């Protein structure tokens, strides 16, 4: 993308950024979910499943104990409990991921916690078939490799089970062998897992305070910067400054104000750093945006 490297946030995941063109022709940026985030989501989902299983098992055992006390033979109620339990285990293994990923959020609780979701790779709609296909392959990606991982090193199965372990490890580690971090299931279903950020809109910085008129509310001092003073910084520095202003940490504000003053050779004194930075931000952004409208962009202080 042309905006590559313009903000620190984008630099960090530049390798994982992809652009999908929607049917309207809008280029939507997606960030492929990090493998570590996905592993974390998986672990959390398994914890949810296993805790539920333990709770259900214990409560069923407790109910079962109550049934056995009355009579010594298993009645219809006992049989019902066993059937319920068998079907519950089946559903927990196959149904959990299906039900959640087919929902409007396209994510299991674990995925939602780490902020990722499933999406169709071609920019179309995520269909029920795709979700089914990607989840049915979990068997050979997780369950079977784990079985072999625990049994093969003991050497009981002989070389055949070591070979099977290696073979299954290919599927387990499939996501590490492609750029888009796709599992085998993703490949078969035509899906991928992307980051699903939920941002709230922060206040506009230039509508009030020193950024709007260049004068401080505290001291009444006017800050006007000349062209050559504003020319030292580019978009990268502007967006770093934006984050400092939005975070509002006094130490950071003081440090940044000091750095800028040293760079442009000002000496405004202490106590009014925020107003100084806001005016500088407002005027730098105005200058860079005018340049942008005329097709002249300055990515950072080196360009």
């Amino acid at each position, binding site marked *: 993308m042309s905006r590559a490297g313009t903000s620190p946030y984008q630099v960090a995941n530049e390798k994982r950024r992809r652009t999908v063109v*929607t049917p309207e022709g809008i280029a939507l940026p997606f960030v492929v979910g990090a493998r570590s985030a996905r592993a974390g989501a998986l672990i959390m989902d398994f914890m949810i499943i296993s805790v539920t299983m333990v709770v259900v098992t214990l409560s069923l055992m407790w109910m079962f104990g109550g049934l056995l006390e009355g009579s010594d033979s298993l009645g219809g109620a006992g*049989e019902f409990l066993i*059937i319920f339990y068998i079907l519950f285990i089946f559903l927990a293994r196959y149904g959990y991921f299906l039900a959640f990923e087919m929902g409007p959020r396209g994510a299991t609780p674990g995925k939602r916690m780490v902020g990722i979701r499933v999406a169709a790779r071609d920019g179309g709609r995520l269909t029920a078939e795709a979700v089914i296909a990607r989840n049915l392959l979990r068997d050979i990606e997780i369950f079977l490799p784990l079985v072999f991982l625990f049994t093969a090193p003991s050497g009981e199965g002989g070389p055949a089970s070591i070979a099977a372990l290696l073979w299954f490890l290919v599927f387990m580690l499939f996501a590490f062998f492609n750029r888009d971090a796709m599992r085998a299931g993703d490949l078969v279903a*035509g899906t991928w897992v992307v980051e699903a950020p939920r941002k709230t809109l*922060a206040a506009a910085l230039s*509508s009030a305070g020193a950024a709007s008129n260049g004068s401080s509310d505290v001291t009444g001092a006017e800050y006007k910067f000349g062209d050559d003073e504003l020319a030292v910084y580019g978009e990268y520095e502007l967006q770093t400054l934006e984050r400092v202003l939005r975070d509002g940490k006094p130490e950071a504000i003081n440090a940044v104000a000091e750095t800028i003053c040293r760079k442009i050779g000002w000496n405004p004194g202490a106590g009014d750093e925020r107003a100084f930075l*806001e005016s500088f931000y407002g005027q730098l*952004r105005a200058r860079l945006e005018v340049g942008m409208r005329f097709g002249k962009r300055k990515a950072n202080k080196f360009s």
Partner: protein
Amino acid sequence: MKAPAIRNWFSKQEIDASSAMGGPDIEAAALRSDRFRLEREGDWKRLEGILKRMEGGRLRGLPDADVLALPVLYRTAASSLAVARETSLDNDTLAYLESLVQRAWFQVYGPRQGFFGWLRGFLGGGLSRSVRGIWLDICIALAAMIAGTISGWLLVSRDQEWYYRLVPTQFMDTRVPGATREVLLETLAVENKTAGLSTFAASLFSNNAGVSILAFALGFAFGVPSLMLLVHNMAVLGAMWWLFSDAGLSWEFAAWLSVHGTTEIFGILLAGAAGIHIGRSMAFPGHRSIMAAAAQSGRRAAQVMVGVVFMMIIAAFLEAFPRQLVGTAERFVIGMTMLALWLGYFFAFGRRPADDPT
């Protein structure tokens, strides 16, 4: 958020105050790009509110006006994003718009039908079309299964030691070579009580569905492991068949097996075929890319697999109740009826030209 005392001296409160007074103060914004943003902010916030409700699954309470406005708001936000990318350096607004448009896109292009709508389309022709779509793979799987059965039979008839290798015999199992006709007949006998049979059915279902999902998942490696699994399972069947026919019980064994076998083995056949379908389309993608071929065949195979799980439920009921409770002739009738029903459903039903989703 921490609010140290020094911050109160600065002008942060006034920013909050201006947004609290109702509409944003557009004239106060010094920058053109911020005025652009403040003019459109209301639409973005409205879209965000609608999205929040849709993502929470609370579609019922959504007013009609909002539902109608969604596509318009989506396009507005998307064009705002396109403009902002070229005119604004406000990183926070850009990130917000990107996430907003992305969320809206997921909802606008989200699944349009609910679970029951999907199920109706699935049972009313979608499944049949998918099964017909993989006919070639069904033929391959069928050939593998027949070959497996014959080889199991031949192996055991040459050398009975093979029986123990093929069939996982349990300690007390009486179905071993050399067993008398009476002993074998007893294992095919009719039970006269129903207790415990439903548990049996449930565990059969869980087991068989697991096996068929495995047969499907293994197809990913170009279909070869699926074929091996099919051949091995059918060799077991062939070996047992030899055992019973050796004792002159072919007819009884076939009847005993056919009750649920016509459904269950058909299901395993379809699961294996679905796996082979994926493997085959990845090995020979034709004019599509491998990724596109895998995705297309994967979605079709997934439909077949849901059908297979349904079949396994039915097979488990048949195996647990009719097989254990009725005699030889009835077993045959039930088994053949089921086979005819499945064949009719898969290959004759839903033939009208409909929009194939896969």
